[in-house]
């Protein structure tokens, strides 16, 4: 079943056409890998979906319904949670406060932004969540995020996306700068998230990871989607050549000649 569909999304920054035209569909319980070289427009595409900036043209459908995503809040309300490449957590806040940032449990709701945080609930929910993702032993919900390792931060960001039962979780290079163990942790998360019925859009430069967790591959080049394949129907070499834009036929001839 279709969860998210993009139709002809376009976005320019001044004269830079970061997104020329992007259309694709993401189904329920599916992990789609979005590949492409630096500057291909991957982050631009997911920022458009998650409401960081508006698109110039094009439509977004969530569960078949046409939606307009004008802010990050809109995207979150539609069940789209994003973990950006360059930003995810506030290092000076505790784990618990980060987990609920923007969706704080409060008492006396009518006080609006002045409403007091429900600190007990905040801490309990955070502890429960950390336990659920299997990192409760090491981490205290009151610890500042600045004291965590890169992998721990990534786990926190991903569990935050999971906690609101988002329909779609978007991960922009989640394994960047991570060690072997942490990387496996993140990939395990992706599998768990899919098992729980969420859809995942995963951006990465590591093609090996793609073959470990993804169902389908989408390749972007210079602002356009140039290929779309199921993982079962392709192989590493082919995907690599599509990403770099190497002449496929020449490459095939070369391999045949050998």
């Amino acid at each position, binding site marked *: 079943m279709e969860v998210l569909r993009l139709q002809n999304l376009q976005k320019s920054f001044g004269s830079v056409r970061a997104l020329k035209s992007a259309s694709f569909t993401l189904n329920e319980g599916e992990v789609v890998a979005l590949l492409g070289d630096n500057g291909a427009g991957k982050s631009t595409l997911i920022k458009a979906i998650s409401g960081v900036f508006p698109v110039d043209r094009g439509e977004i459908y969530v569960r078949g319904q046409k939606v307009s995503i004008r802010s990050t809040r809109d995207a979150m309300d539609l069940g789209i949670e994003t973990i950006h490449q360059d930003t995810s957590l506030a290092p000076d*806040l505790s784990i618990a406060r980060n987990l609920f940032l923007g969706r704080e449990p409060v008492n006396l709701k009518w006080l609006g932004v002045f409403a007091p945080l429900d600190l007990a609930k905040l801490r309990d929910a955070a502890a429960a969540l950390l336990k659920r993702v299997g990192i409760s032993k090491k981490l205290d919900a009151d610890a500042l995020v600045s004291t965590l390792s890169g992998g721990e931060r990534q786990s926190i960001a991903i569990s935050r996306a999971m906690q609101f039962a988002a329909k779609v979780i978007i991960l922009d290079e989640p394994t960047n700068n991570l060690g072997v163990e942490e990387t496996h942790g993140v990939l395990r998360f992706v599998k768990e998230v899919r098992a729980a019925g969420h859809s995942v859009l995963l951006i990465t430069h590591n093609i090996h990871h793609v073959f470990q967790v993804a169902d389908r591959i989408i390749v972007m080049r210079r602002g356009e989607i140039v290929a779309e394949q199921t993982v079962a129907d392709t192989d590493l070499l082919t995907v690599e050549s599509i990403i770099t834009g190497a002449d496929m036929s020449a490459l095939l001839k070369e391999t045949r000649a050998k």
Partner: protein
Amino acid sequence: MPGAKRRSSLIRSPQFSSLVILIVLLVAFAVADANFLSPLNISNMMAFLPELGIIALGMTLLLTAGEFDLSVGAVFGLAPVVVMLLVQSGQVDIGVALLAGLLLCVAIGAINGLIVTKIGISSFLVTLSMLLVVRGAALYITQGFPLKSWDQPGFFVTLLAGSFNIGTFRFYTSLWWFITLSLLAIYVLHYAKLGNWISAIGSNRNAAVARGVPADAVKIWLFILTSVLAGLAGMISAFRISATSPVAGTGYELEVIAMVVVGGTALTGGRGTILGTIVGALMLRSIRNGIVLIGVPGLAYNIFVGVIILAMLILHALLQKNAARS
């Protein structure tokens, strides 16, 4: 053992080390000069404290959100000048004039905030320019002359600059303003949803925005709040001394920022403490007062103040490093 852990993190926190230094300073001054703790001197300190302290509360919230405001000293000067000109030359009712003065502060803060957030110029440059505009305006509309302030007893004088005695101590109502506003600021920064947003914005603006936090709106309101508090402090001061001058508050912006960072709030945003700011305000006030009493020559004050501020900042930096290591 969470109790022990909490205790040790409290001891390592910047506001705690500031408090220890404050106590050491108070004891040192008291030993050096018995008059330091006399009712007269304490009353004196408590009269000055709220005026800068009130501005420091706004500045703490603003710094925590990652911005700062250099125009507060100028606003401190302009607001009461405008009020008194309206009353004396414009025959406007004092209450209306005070309201107009505060609205002017709202406008100044809103302009600061809008330029910083919507055009994206650093708050250092924007508020430095605003300092010149506001100070220039105060000088121009008064032609550089001080004005007599409102001194007819009544509701507004009592509200802003009334005084009362507790035993042999004489306190001004401004102290109540400071205490009330401090409690509100503590609540907002540390216990309310808004405080979570303020810290998050200063810590990692993009992360906050990605979670749906309206970062620009929060910053604009904080600029407005800081400006209004600066104007209010200026009015309190003008009423207390029954005079208002276009150059009042010169240099206050730096003194206020010093109070805030000495208390342990990070200049880079994300980490703010109102308790620390209160300690910082008390510290700078007692240093200025204490070094006069112990006979440091007037022209040498700033050397002492500067050295003590530097020492405090070095201490915070060392503690921070230590905490990160452990």
